[in-house]
């Protein structure tokens, strides 16, 4: 066999290659996404594409706290509102460029996420949902009653990002701001959730007592889940604020929007990263197609959530996973049978 020296070198080479090769699918995805907006037939579809990507960021973030860490929060939409309004205030009232307002808003929302997470130390399940719902509604009502941010009339004239002195006001230009952010967001969530942190989140979801006995600091990881998901919400919020026409209204952050967000995660697959992405894409498109029936939207979405939970508890992502797991199992069986024969 190999000597120790050659063996070590042989092992190191494929490892380095493996580290690099895990970027290849991401690069391919990036290339596909680069040309995507040119396939859109009208500016409205470009706008829709941006909305889809922003919703993907929101859903991926919500999936971290709800899907992986199992914390039932309905406050995510309020975090998006905080991100959006912070970014708007920073750029309009303080003249900060978009490129600084975005990270600042993300950070501020992260802090707000920590506040939303504190009730989770003691509350679980439906009680936590109620507490976070209370927080979310108070944020929305506070915004609609504060003249400084335009109250219920809305916050307008939020500038688009500037690049080399030119505003990225068109939807197609803005796409090239949103798309990399969304892609990086998905990639980072992969890194987080495939690491020990993701495992700790899953352990919390299943049995926080057993997790604590295994040395997991339950409070730290609950808070971490809330803060990370708040970063996503803040980033998505800021991106909404600066998208043309640069207008924010507290009514886009109601319980209806929260249910829509939950639907993305539930339909896509709780605790399934790609599921959350698929869910966000599908629900945004459904949302757009059913715009004429918007007064029935809550009923439709509620029904889809109930049906999904009843017949597809792990969502679309879960169904896909199961399909591949079954295929692998059958292949394994066949291989074993052929060995025996």
């Amino acid at each position, binding site marked *: 066999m190999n000597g120790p020296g050659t063996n070590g070198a042989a092992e190191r080479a494929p*490892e380095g290659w*493996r*580290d690099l090769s*895990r970027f290849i699918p991401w690069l391919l995805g990036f290339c596909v996404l680069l040309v995507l907006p040119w396939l859109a037939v009208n500016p409205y579809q470009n706008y829709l594409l941006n909305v889809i990507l922003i919703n993907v960021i929101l859903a991926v973030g919500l999936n971290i706290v709800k899907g992986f860490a199992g914390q039932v929060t309905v406050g995510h939409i309020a975090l998006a509102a905080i991100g959006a309004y912070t970014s708007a205030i920073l750029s309009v009232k303080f003249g900060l460029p978009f490129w600084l307002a975005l990270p600042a808003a993300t950070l501020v929302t992260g802090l707000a996420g920590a506040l939303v997470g504190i009730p989770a130390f003691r509350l679980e399940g439906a009680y936590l949902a109620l507490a976070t719902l209370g927080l979310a509604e108070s944020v929305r009502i506070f915004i609609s009653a504060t003249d400084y941010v335009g109250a219920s009339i809305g916050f307008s004239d939020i500038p688009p990002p500037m690049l080399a002195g030119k505003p990225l006001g068109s939807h197609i230009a803005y796409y090239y701001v949103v798309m990399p952010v969304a892609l990086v967001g998905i*990639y*980072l969530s*992969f*890194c*987080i959730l*495939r*690491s*020990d*942190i993701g*495992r*700790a989140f*899953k*352990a919390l979801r*299943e*049995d926080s*007592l*057993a*997790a*604590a*006995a*295994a*040395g*997991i*600091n*339950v409070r730290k990881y609950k808070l*971490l889940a809330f803060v*990370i998901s708040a970063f996503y919400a803040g980033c998505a919020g800021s991106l909404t604020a600066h998208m043309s026409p640069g207008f924010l209204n507290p009514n886009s952050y109601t319980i209806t929007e929260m249910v829509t967000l939950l639907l993305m995660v539930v339909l896509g697959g709780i605790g399934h990263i790609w599921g959350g992405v698929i869910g966000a894409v599908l629900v945004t498109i459904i949302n757009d197609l059913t715009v004429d029936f918007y007064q029935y939207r809550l009923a439709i979405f509620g029904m889809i959530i109930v049906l999904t939970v009843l017949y597809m508890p792990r969502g679309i992502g879960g169904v896909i996973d199961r399909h591949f797991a079954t295929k692998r199992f059958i292949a394994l069986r066949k291989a074993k049978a052929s060995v025996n024969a």
Partner: protein
Amino acid sequence: MLEVTNLSKRFGGLVAVANVDLSVRQGEIRGIIGPNGSGKSTLFNLISSVYKPEPGSRIAFDGEDITGRPPHDIARRGIARTFQLLRIFTQMSVLENLLIGHHSHVRYGVGAAVVGAARVWAEERRLKQEMMDLLGFVGLADYAEMAAGELSIGQRRLLALGRAMAMRPKLLMLDEPAAGLSPVNVDKLLNTVMALQKRFGLTLVIIEHILKVVMESCDTVTVLDHGEKIAEGPPAAIKDDHRVIEAYLGKEMADAEVRAFLKAS
């Protein structure tokens, strides 16, 4: 190594554990027995800080006072435990269950994990390899990728043991590790526990109802009844202790009858 003094716990009017003193030496195998509801599991829950003891209780480990420290801190200090109802993570894979146990020994921080640094991936590979070795030791290597919920009860008990071992503990507390197993599997589990104990120089505290386990493997046995310690000593002496027999079989049986009963069984 473990020094418990004057430990008490009340649930409302019920005294679950009353003024228990317990001292476990390094490398010792300690058995804890007692009738149902005598406070054995509560004792474990107090030591691992699932419950808060009454004021005046003191738990020290390695010379440090750990009374009332949070559970994850107790685990980090090297006290691992299993649960009577196992509490394995049924939706996670067998390997992931062990990796959770190894959580305290992961050598990268949140920041590195978030950006997916190369050393995180290298460390993950190392962790997986180490946990696979441990899985091989408890005899579950073939099931590594399987969801823990799909295991049989005997395999689940081995997994619970493996998860506790993944914590690299100094003190391992097993709460009825062999409950509900067939005699063959009891032997298998016991052999695994003893092999692990020897290999890692563990200190063991075992709650067990199967007397064979206690009599054959423990150095010292502590007997609890109604939350109080009623006897302590080597297994042979405990077997003949009057109060112990009384606690298990009741007062009505005369001593001679008890002796006859024990001889017959």
